[in-house]
C-alpha cells in the first residue's frame, strides 16, 4: 500500500511539474504547480511528517499560490507567452548533467554510514508534539529570526507593491478626474 501510494504521488508530481516547466501558458503552469504542491504534502503525510504536510498545504497552496494568482491578474498574463529559445539541446544536456550530479549528492548520506540522529524524536509523542518540543527548545532562536524575516518581507512587499497607493481613486471627485483627463492612464 505504501509502495503504491509513493509511486502514485511520485509519477503525478513529476508529470505536473513537467507541465509547469514546459507549458507556454502561465495559467496552466500555475495550476499544475499548485496541484503538485498538494501532492507533495501527501508525500509528507506518507513520511509521518504530519505537521509539515499541513504547513505545506496552508502556506504553499493557501498563501503562496494565492499570491501568484493575484500577481497573474495584475500582469494580465492569461494568454500564452512567447519565449525565445536559442539552444534547447544545450539546456537539456546541462539539466541532465546536473541531474546526475544531484543524484550523487543526494545519495551521499546513503553511502556514508556515519550519519546519526542529532536530536532524536521524543518517544511517545505524536508528530506535532515532537515538532513543538524541538522547535521551541533547540530551534528557538532561528524561529524568532524567521519571524523577524517574515516581518521584513511583509514591509518590503507593502513598500514595493504599494507605491502611489496613497492616491486613492475613490477619493478623487469627478471634476478633478475630468480635469486630469487621460493623464493618469499610464
Amino acid at each position: 500500500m505504501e509502495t503504491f501510494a509513493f509511486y502514485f504521488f511520485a509519477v503525478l508530481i513529476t508529470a505536473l511539474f513537467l507541465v509547469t516547466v514546459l507549458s507556454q501558458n502561465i495559467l496552466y503552469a500555475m495550476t499544475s504547480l499548485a496541484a503538485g504542491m498538494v501532492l507533495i504534502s501527501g508525500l509528507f503525510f506518507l513520511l509521518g511528517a504530519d505537521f509539515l504536510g499541513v504547513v505545506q498545504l496552508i502556506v504553499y497552496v493557501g498563501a503562496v499560490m494565492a499570491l501568484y494568482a493575484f500577481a497573474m491578474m495584475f500582469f494580465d498574463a492569461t494568454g500564452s507567452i512567447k519565449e525565445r529559445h536559442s539552444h534547447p539541446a544545450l539546456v537539456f544536456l546541462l539539466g541532465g548533467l546536473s541531474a546526475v550530479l544531484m543524484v550523487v549528492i543526494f545519495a551521499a548520506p546513503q553511502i556514508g554510514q556515519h550519519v546519526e540522529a542529532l536530536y532524536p524524536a521524543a518517544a511517545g509523542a505524536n508528530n506535532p508534539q515532537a515538532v513543538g518540543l524541538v522547535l521551541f527548545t533547540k530551534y528557538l532562536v532561528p524561529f524568532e529570526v524567521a519571524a523577524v524575516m517574515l516581518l521584513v518581507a511583509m514591509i518590503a512587499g507593502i513598500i514595493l507593491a504599494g507605491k502611489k497607493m496613497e492616491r486613492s481613486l475613490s477619493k478623487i471627485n469627478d471634476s478633478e478626474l475630468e480635469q486630469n483627463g487621460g493623464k493618469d492612464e499610464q
Partner: protein
Amino acid sequence: MIGLSHYLILSAILFSIGLVGVIRRRNLLMLFFATEIMLNAANIAFAALSSYMHDLSGQMFAFFIIAVAASEVAVGLGLLILLYKKYGSLDLDDYTMLRG
C-alpha cells in the same frame, strides 16, 4: 518496500526539473515557479532524511525553507510589479540594455 533512496532520487529528479526550468525560461514569473519547484524538491529530501534517520532536524529545516520561500515570494512579486510598471513586460529579453 520504499526506502530512503527512493525519496532522494525523486527529490533529485524534481530538483533537476526545476533546474531545467530555471535555465530554459525567459519569463520572470515562470522563473519563480521553477524556483518553487527546486525548493520543494529540497523539502522532500529533508523530510525523507528526517523520517528515516528518526531525527526532527530535517523537518525543522523544511519549516525554515518554507518561511524563506514565503518571504521570497512577497519581496519578489513586489519587485516584479515594479518591473512590469517600468517596462510593461516580464520577458527577460526585453530587459537587455547593453547592446554591442
